[in-house]
């Protein structure tokens, strides 16, 4: 049998399985061999689940033989290591959960297994999803497949790098302030954050519950839409998953961007590097040539405060969510102390890395007596202002376009100041604050030949328009077909 291309798209792989060009077992083995060949350099995976993958592939082959195959049957997928997986250790890339083996699956995992997907393993991330470079993993940093000396972005850096390196056909990540879209941009793949409430968070280890959403990475927009279609929808086990119908995300794509009005708000371009601005502008020109109306009159003045609001809200929620790690019920436990309190403090002091501790303490500060109104309550009011301004733009426009990140992927170790690291997410954070869906698609190469991402934002629940425009752009521009050489 000829070697199976590691860069097959999901659509091509599903076609190959249906046509009998290869079996799910052969496809899984080819992907596992690819991981064995390149992951020593990329380090996208914390855990590779070879045996489970081959067993799932065998079941997929039975389904295919029965003629009982869906779009994800037999498709190899990588899962960010904060989505709990029954019987497979789920670490959050933290010492705190290094040996944690969940006793059940997250809802997205249940849906993927029922759809016949083949999990290859669990991917590296910034510890507890706090970071923008995957350098805050407690285990090891992941490299950017386009330049191994650079970061893949974060926090879902492993899931992005896996897709970019051909170590997985699609993957799932999570996005609290840009953690899917920014690594998608840095690694030259499609990364998509759904509307808050579109995908169940049951079994997603919580960082900031009012902002967290699970979403797909893929080699093209169609594959991302196919994966989202499989995991989206109301889940009684997550009270914030919305009881709204899930439409066919690929409906109406033949209309392209014709008739769409796309806002270009100058506030969401401020501070971007010249190479990023150039690639983004070229993409906006392309959207206009394809028939979209570009509206440069729209303004989002309050997004200037989004980063500050986020670094009050997200740490506040994190400080409450991470209070559960006490060394008693699960996770790392220090037992040598003189008292229960000392054990708890040492468990948390030793089990968490510095970025996690920083954010827990920031949250404790913002929520403490005397500061609550000035920081937490005020950030929630600014959140209302930001939501209103987005709503006003979406009264007049269908989409908003911005760069995904202000720079291309930077060198490992280059950003050491915590606040400078936070600025990576300056264009993506407002979207989480407002609960909107957004996508990053490759739109060119910048400094050092590194990928640049185009960021499209849609109104609540309008993923279909988001995908439709992103697909039209992607197919006409063709940047998504480029891969790094490893």
């Amino acid at each position: 049998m000829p070697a199976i291309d590691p860069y097959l798209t999901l659509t091509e792989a599903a076609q190959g399985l249906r046509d009998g060009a290869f079996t799910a077992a052969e496809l899984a083995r080819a992907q596992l061999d690819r991981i064995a060949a390149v992951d020593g350099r990329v380090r996208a995976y914390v855990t590779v689940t070879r045996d489970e993958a081959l067993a799932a592939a065998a079941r997929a082959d039975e389904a295919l033989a029965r003629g009982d195959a869906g779009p994800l049957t037999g498709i190899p997928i990588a899962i960010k290591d904060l989505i709990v997986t029954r019987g497979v250790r789920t670490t959050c890339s933290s010492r705190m959960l290094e040996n944690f083996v969940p006793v059940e699956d997250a809802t997205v995992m249940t849906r993927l297994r029922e759809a016949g997907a083949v999990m290859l393993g669990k991917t590296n991330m910034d510890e507890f999803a706090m970071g923008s470079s995957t350098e805050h993993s407690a285990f090891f940093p992941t490299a950017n497949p386009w330049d191994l000396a650079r970061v893949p972005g974060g926090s879902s850096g492993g899931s992005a790098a896996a897709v970019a390196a051909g170590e997985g056909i699609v993957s799932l990540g999570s996005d609290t302030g840009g953690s899917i879209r920014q690594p998608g941009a840095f690694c030259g793949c499609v990364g998509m954050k759904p509307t808050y409430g579109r995908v169940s968070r049951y079994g997603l280890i919580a960082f900031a519950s009012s902002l967290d959403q699970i979403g797909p990475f893929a080699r093209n927009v169609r594959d991302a839409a196919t994966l989202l279609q499989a995991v989206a929808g109301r889940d009684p086990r997550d009270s914030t998953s919305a009881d709204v119908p899930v439409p066919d995300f690929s409906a109406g794509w033949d209309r392209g961007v014709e008739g769409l009005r796309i806002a270009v708000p100058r506030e969401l371009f401020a501070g971007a590097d010249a190479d990023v601005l150039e690639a983004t502008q070229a993409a906006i020109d392309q959207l206009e040539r394809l028939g979209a109306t570009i509206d440069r009159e729209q303004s989002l003045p309050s997004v200037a405060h989004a980063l500050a609001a986020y670094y009050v809200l997200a740490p506040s929620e994190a400080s409450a969510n991470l209070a559960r790690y006490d060394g008693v019920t699960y996770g790392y436990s220090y037992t040598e102390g003189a008292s229960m309190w000392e054990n708890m403090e040492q468990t948390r002091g030793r089990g968490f890395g510095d970025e996690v501790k920083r954010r827990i303490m920031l949250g404790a500060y913002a929520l403490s007596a005397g500061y609550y109104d000035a920081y937490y309550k005020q950030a929630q009011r600014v959140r209302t202002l930001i939501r209103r301004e987005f709503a006003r733009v979406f009264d007049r426009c269908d989409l908003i376009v911005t760069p995904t990140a202000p720079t291309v992927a930077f060198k490992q170790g280059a950003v050491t100041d915590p606040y400078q690291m936070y600025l990576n997410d300056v264009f993506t954070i407002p979207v989480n604050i407002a609960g909107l869906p957004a996508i990053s698609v490759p739109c060119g190469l910048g400094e050092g030949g590194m990928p640049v991402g185009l960021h499209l934002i849609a109104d609540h629940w309008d993923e279909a328009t988001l995908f439709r425009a992103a697909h039209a752009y992607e197919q006409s521009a063709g940047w998504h077909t480029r891969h790094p050489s490893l």
Partner: protein
Amino acid sequence: MPTNDADPPAELTIEEVRHLATLARLGMTDAELEKFRGELASIIGHCDVLQRVDTAGVEPTNNGADLLNVVAADEPRPSWPPRQVLANAPSRSDDLFRVRAVLE
């Protein structure tokens, strides 16, 4: 890379940082407390721009989905068996989590 029009770092004393670490139950050395003091002061200084935003009459948004009082159907269902609940317990005694005495 964007730069931020930095506000001056907020005042944060080592005692305040120690208090935060206690509130958060994070065991830290004095050197760690000092490192975090500088970093937290810088981040809080950046967040102080929020104080200058006019939010008079603006209601806070406190969740991501505009949902209020979501209730589950009041239907009994089986809970996890003790074996499952205790599967990751660092220390157990029969069907119980084992901990140090809270009051000694």
